[in-house]
């Protein structure tokens, strides 16, 4: 029985091998039915594992960010609230459902974080740490950690992590908010926060943030009990 099967299999292989290759046309390539394959379009800028480009000011890390945040950004790019022509164009014809799936895909990626960047003067770092972790009550400036989580890895599902980003990206985005070039759903709390920061303070916050070592795979904090210090249109309050 086994012998018969072997003979049959051999014949089959021989027969298949003897077919001229062109006769049935080239064997169709199999394309993986995965999000990874679908999103190869994003790799050029955001990296193979959503790590972003560290030296670039415009290609941020996507891996591990809260999915609701990523979804809101994708919608904003598609609908023109955030302006970056390459992104506005690429997302132009994609549906809400697909954008949600793209956001979930990146939020689940566990990609190692870059090494901390050190070297800023101690006084600047101290000022940055104060603003990030305590804010400035006298100016009604909340701490970053109030919303972005004690570990600054974000708060699920709408608030992004602040760790693992490039310094130029952080600086540019806070600057864009202050200049009203970047928008979120109204009330746009980040626009308000950014408007309270001076250029030196943005710098201090940035250098302190990028100097923090990031533990492997920090997950966004659970957002269920989060009480925001201000109204944010992107974070619906229950």
């Amino acid at each position, binding site marked *: 029985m086994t012998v018969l099967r072997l003979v049959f299999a051999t014949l089959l292989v021989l027969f298949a091998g003897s077919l001229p290759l062109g006769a049935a046309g*080239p064997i*169709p*390539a199999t*394309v993986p039915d995965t999000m990874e*394959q*679908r*999103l*190869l*379009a*994003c*790799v*050029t*800028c955001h990296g193979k594992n959503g790590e972003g480009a560290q030296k670039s000011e415009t290609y941020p890390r996507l891996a591990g960010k809260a999915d609701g945040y990523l979804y809101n950004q994708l919608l904003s790019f*598609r*609908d*023109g*609230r955030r302006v970056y*022509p*390459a992104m*506005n*164009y*690429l*997302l*132009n*014809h*994609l*549906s809400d*459902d*697909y954008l949600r*799936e793209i956001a979930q895909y990146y939020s689940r990626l566990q990609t190692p974080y870059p090494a901390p960047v050190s070297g800023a003067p101690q006084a600047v770092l101290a000022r940055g740490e104060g603003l990030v972790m305590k804010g400035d009550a006298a100016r009604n400036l909340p701490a970053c950690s109030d919303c972005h989580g004690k570990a600054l890895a974000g708060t699920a599902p709408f608030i992004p992590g602040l760790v693992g980003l490039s310094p130029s990206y952080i600086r540019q985005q806070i600057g864009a908010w202050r200049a009203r070039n970047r928008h979120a759903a109204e009330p746009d709390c980040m626009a308000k926060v950014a408007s309270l920061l001076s250029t030196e303070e943005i710098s201090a916050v940035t250098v302190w943030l990028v100097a923090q070592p990031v533990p492997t795979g920090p997950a966004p904090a659970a957002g269920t009990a989060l009480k925001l210090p201000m109204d944010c249109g992107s974070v619906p309050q229950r």
Partner: protein
Amino acid sequence: MKRFLFVAVIALIGGLGAFLFFSREGPHKPLAQRFDSHAKQIAHGEYLARAGDCLACHTSRGGEAYAGGLPIPTPFGTFHVPNITPDAQTGIGTWTADDFWRALHEGRSRDGSLLYPAFPYTNYTKVTRADADDLFAYLQSLKPVHNPRRPHDLSFPYDQRKMLIGWRALYFRSGEYENDKSQSDEWNRGAYLVSGLGHCDACHSQRNLLGAVANDAKSAGALIPMQNWYAPSLTSNREAGLGDWDIGEVVELLKTGVAERGAVFGPMAAVVQHSLQHLTQADIAAMVMYLKSQAQEDGLPEPDQIRVSAKQGEELTRKGAKLYAKHCADCHQRRGEGVPRIYPPLVNNQAILMRYPINSIRIVVNGGFAPSTAGNPRPYGMPPFAQDLSDEEIAAVVSYIRQSWGNHAPAVSPTEVANARGLPVE
């Protein structure tokens, strides 16, 4: 002097038009009730709004549907598209079905003023009164949105609305679509949709200096002004003429955005996403049947591009072969055969071999996704190569693709790529 002459000519045309101007048509006769409920009429109107892709122009990016506000840049200045929700102050809330019919059929606003043909009434005039009434019923059923309209921002002399009298005398005849009795019902249905609500020739025809489509240019292909995408000829089989396409194949392309032979991209991706995918299989098939009957065999299109010397062309193609193997072959396959419905084939793909190379260049520069549709909800994407490849490299790879595996189209100049890079992406 030249400008003066131009203005004088326009004025002359205006005068001529006034002379030729016909009086408005009388009120229409009331129609028999065609639907047993108002809801059904509204649903049919919604379908017609999809067929006309009204949303595409009457909605600003990220704005409320049909509330207008989209700026449309043209060679004559920028049009600001009006609000067509039933808001009494800023929309068409106070319009009657007669007013709406007159806008569609005669290109006149409620106050009698002439509408600019950026609103494609040269096509919409073919819409039947019954369909216009259904469309109106649907628009009146929308939530009113208060969105004041901005005046158009047109340069002289185009800001002189009265000039339109002349324009209309030359280029506009009002009249519903009339069935061609020598053709089948299906063919006529297709012709009605393509030439009327579908307004396909609004993009696929070259416009003259006055923004009008001459009869011999109808659907013969055009570089869309300001957008700088080439809308291929629908009448030549060398381009997007459907003569040698299977009807089912084109129906699939227009319903889902992808088919074995290619994918829609650029402005056509929007048309599929917002309009065509929502139409019935039967209507799309009718449109395809009609378009197929319009297609002709003809010679190679005369290339309209910056010339590349034979020597430079060879160099580009040689370089392009290496770049293709490195950047393109993983998806589009080694010999450009592609993967059906996922990665468009590059062999014998008319979209790559057309008279303007602009579309191929832009796709390499900017990448892109086929549209999300019910039939292809999660399209695969193509990365932009703007930051990875130089103008010369992009010219090389496009030249290689246009000249390999049986493709015969001229090589592309790096200058052409440099020009395309500077274009705004939409």
